[in-house]
């Protein structure tokens, strides 16, 4: 990205700027030799001059520049450091040393760059360098601050654009990352990865049509990257083109039969289209290719659960957990099915086990909002079973969940429900309104809000209730339409299995 010639000129420019000093004649001649690319002569001249004036930081700096150009990085570093020991803020020496450190994104460049920026806060190159080093160090928030101050400089630097975009994604600003990856894709149109990264972001942002615009040129008959095919499949499914989604995912699986992610994606399609047996058959094919993969067991377990084959589902979840006990998701899936099954022969010890499992998971992942929510849900269900009011533990766990993840609307819905059971309609209303801020289409929150408002007995809420009822009805209608659109296709197995 930063070629040494560019930086040498940048440093030399800084040296020239400091010419109103003694020994000007020798300095000028050395600079002249450097400009004319007579580096050996320039080095000899610098060494000679230093014999006469060994404390001239400018000569040390010029020596460093020449050594740097000649590739003697270690000696160059020594020269720049000597210069800086004589004149700590001498810009040319600072930049020279920074340049050397920057080659390897060495974090020792950071204080030097900060000194440069103290002298010149608008130095975009310094900001860009600092941003890239901070990104390398994993300090994305600091990196973003400096990328923002170097927008002109990074415009033509693919590496910086990529680092900037990655940082925006890591700091959960994917929307801001989209234009950065668009710039990157335009800057290197022959390269595939920026387009893929951009498409990933667009799909995650539910801008599926835009994602397909990016991806479709890549969907050539000879496309051999299954990740691209899988991503395109996801986008096609989102826009309702299920046949294309299935076709592409099928290609992805054929190209890489050992990647469990593609099978899992296929299982998700089958779940969405009520094609559970087809999904199970595909998971069986996957497990034939990659035996012992916990994700495939989880997916198959979920599919079995949909067919009320709870014993098989539970067996799969247990297998998944045995294979990879750290997978919280398997616990989650198990929870879903465990409560779906008819537990006619089961009583509380089994449920206590589930609660103890979640307690263990919470000890391992105390910051998991989802686990706190699931724990609260389990406790509430148990309270319902025993006919007692919800416990403080359930309430606290749900509150913790929304504290950790304020947009976890399921937890807010649960809280609202708990508050209503206590007759605390004001608090229920507050939770419903917060949930609706994050998810305006959350029908549960809307319904709870209607009931809580009516029960609260507050005057003046009549108009709001009527509006909310209308809104809920509209959501129900649109939900039906969406479901209808989603269910347009079901999967039918062909005589020959595609993957075997």
């Amino acid at each position, binding site marked *: 990205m930063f070629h040494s010639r560019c930086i040498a000129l940048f440093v030399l420019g800084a040296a020239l700027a400091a010419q109103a000093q003694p020994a000007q004649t020798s300095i000028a001649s050395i600079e002249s030799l450097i400009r004319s690319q007579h580096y050996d002569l320039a080095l000899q001249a610098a060494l000679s001059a230093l014999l006469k004036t060994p404390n001239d930081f400018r000569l040390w700096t010029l020596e460093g520049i020449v050594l740097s150009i000649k590739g003697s990085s270690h000696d160059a570093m020594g020269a720049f450091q000597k210069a800086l020991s004589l004149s700590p803020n001498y810009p040319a020496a600072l930049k020279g040393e920074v340049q050397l450190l920057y080659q390897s994104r060495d974090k020792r460049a950071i204080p030097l760059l900060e000194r440069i920026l103290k002298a010149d806060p608008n130095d975009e190159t310094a900001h860009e360098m600092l941003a890239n080093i901070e990104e390398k160090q994993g300090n994305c928030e600091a990196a973003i601050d400096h990328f923002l101050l170097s927008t002109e400089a990074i415009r033509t630097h693919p590496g910086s654009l990529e680092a900037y975009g990655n940082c925006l994604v890591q700091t959960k600003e994917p929307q801001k990352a989209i234009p950065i990856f668009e710039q990157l894709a335009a800057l290197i149109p022959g390269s595939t990865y920026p387009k893929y990264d951009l498409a990933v972001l667009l799909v995650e942002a539910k801008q599926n049509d835009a994602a397909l615009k990016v991806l479709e040129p890549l969907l050539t008959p000879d496309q051999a990257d299954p990740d691209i095919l899988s991503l395109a499949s996801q986008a096609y499914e989102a826009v309702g083109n299920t046949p294309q989604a299935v076709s592409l995912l099928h290609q992805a699986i054929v190209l890489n039969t050992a990647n469990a992610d593609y099978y899992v994606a296929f299982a998700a399609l089958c779940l969405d289209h009520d094609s559970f047996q087809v999904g199970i058959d595909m998971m069986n094919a996957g497990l034939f290719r990659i035996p012992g993969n916990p994700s495939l067991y989880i997916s198959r377990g979920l599919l079995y659960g949909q067919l009320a084959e709870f014993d098989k589902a539970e067996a799969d979840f247990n297998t998944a957990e045995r294979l990879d006990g750290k997978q919280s998701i398997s616990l989650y899936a198990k929870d879903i099915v465990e*409560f*779906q099954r008819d537990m006619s022969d089961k009583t509380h010890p*089994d*449920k206590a086990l589930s609660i103890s499992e979640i307690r263990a998971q919470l000890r391992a992942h105390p910051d998991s909002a989802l686990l706190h929510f699931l724990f609260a849900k389990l406790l509430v*269900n148990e309270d*319902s079973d025993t*006919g007692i009011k919800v416990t403080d533990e359930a309430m606290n766990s749900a509150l913790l969940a929304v504290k950790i993840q304020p947009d976890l609307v399921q937890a807010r819905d649960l809280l609202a*429900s708990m508050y209503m059971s206590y007759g605390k309609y004001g608090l229920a209303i507050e939770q419903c309104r917060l949930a609706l801020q994050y998810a305006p289409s959350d029908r*549960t929150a809307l319904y709870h809000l209607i009931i809580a408002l009516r029960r609260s007995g507050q005057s003046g809420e009549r108009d709001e209730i009527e509006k909310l009822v209308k809104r809920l*009805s509209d959501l129900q209608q649109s939900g039906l339409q969406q479901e209808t659109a989603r269910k347009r296709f079901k999967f039918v197995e062909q005589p020959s299995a595609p993957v075997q």
Partner: protein
Amino acid sequence: MGGRIATPQAKPTESGRPFDAYFTDVAALAGLTAPVIYGPVDHKDYILEANGCGCAFFDYDNDGWIDIFLLSGTRLSGAPPGASNRLYKNNRDGTFTDVTRQAGLEAVGWANGVCIGDYNNDGYEDLFCTYYGQNRLYRNLGNGTFKDVTKEAGLETSEVRWGAGCSFLDYNRDGHLDLFVSNYLQFDFEHVPKPGSGVNCNWKGIPVNCGPRGLPFGRHSLYRNNGDGTFTDVSIESGFGKSWSNYGLTVVAADFNEDGWPDIFVASDSTPSLLFINQHDGTFKEEGIERGVALSSDGMEQSGMGVGIGDYNLDGHLDIFVTHFTEDSDALYHNDGTGNFDDTTLPARLGVETRFTSWGTGIVDLDNDGWPDIFFVTGSVYPEVEKQFPQYPDKSPRILFRNLGNGAFEEIANAGPGVTTPHSSRGCAFGDFDNDGDLDILILNMNAAPSLLRNDLKGTHHWLKVKLVGTKSNRSAIGARVLARYSGRVQAQAVLSQSSYFSCNDSRLHFGLGQATTADLTIHWPSGLVEKYPGVKCDQLITIREAHGVIPNAGWARS
């Protein structure tokens, strides 16, 4: 049907308390052997063939012994011989005689619901049957025969509609029974897709009959009784003119908010159920969602089929139980007395049972312990699915939850073979066909003979039956609300024209009293009159005539 999937509650430890009711299917012994025809046996190409129909316990000849009326469907390939609605006369010895032909009630078609009421106040209960096609009003002539008076009553329609639930009610309190009819959806064979060919024509990946989702909604109708044997369609002026985006099924009319005027609840399939509140001026306002009785506790529409009405927690108010589709929980809504409801399904521990599609139901005291229990029948709408997925059987057992008296219920697995033997059932009605002081159950089974579950109740619990005869109110006293106080508690019941699934119960209200030997009765007549009868002795039927007091029972005899 279908959609929402609920996670079942875990079953709690059994209470260990004995349950005294025991049910034996005596239908064959009683002479109820003719099968109820309803579409093909092992598959259903159309939703019309799947929904089935209702039945009734009612005393058509006023002899004090309840008779049986069973609706019937047909087949697209042609009705097999004997396919007809059937009326069975109670022989007062545990058997019945098929009197369909002599009663003039032979009819073949896609019948759905039945509601009972004396619409002309002549002292004999009349019949109204809904159909896909033309609904039928049968006037009871009082001589053991009925006359189809649909046309002369002004109830004939020019268009083909799918009449579903129905209920007589006196919505304007003029003493004449009006009629409400829910229309399920708009259906015609030309346009309904074949199994597997449309968006809503698959279940678990298996091609099945299509709908209701994707099919156009029906419109519900209210007919005002003109008092001269005719009815006027007042749907538009009363507020029912618009389409409610709703697939309405069973209809129950009762005074849920206790303002003295009957309201209307419509259990609704795959859409929010409806609660129409009577505005006292000839109009109704739909308030199901805000009153908390339209949706599940998480705000989702369910597949409302059947409706049980009763007072499960003995607080004097009418609660509602709604049956739903397989993999979803049925729903219990507790009425706070103002017509506002709380979903108490989970606290009541009814969420443990989600295996089957549920239909006819009742909140009824089957063991006379004074606490109304919950009973419902089950059966698949997709009989073809069990071939591939045996976990979804066509035939499934009846479900009985006994009331534990603490707000919770407990599923009873050993209440006799009448409960445990699997069937594909739809309607059911509750009544005491043998007049022995407990509630028996009539069940309509698809393409099979009906079940008649005789309750062989043990124990020493007492009971009381109340038969009401209106004078200023409609003669059937439909809409009357009775409060029975016993053992320091109060239980509400109402005289209904339809409940369960498209069915009608014995109009004699049955109160189990537990160990109490007397009950204080308060009767809220539809006319607005409130009468009190303190200290009524147990183990008897009393007949009360509005504003006249207790009168002799008509033909009543203990078996």
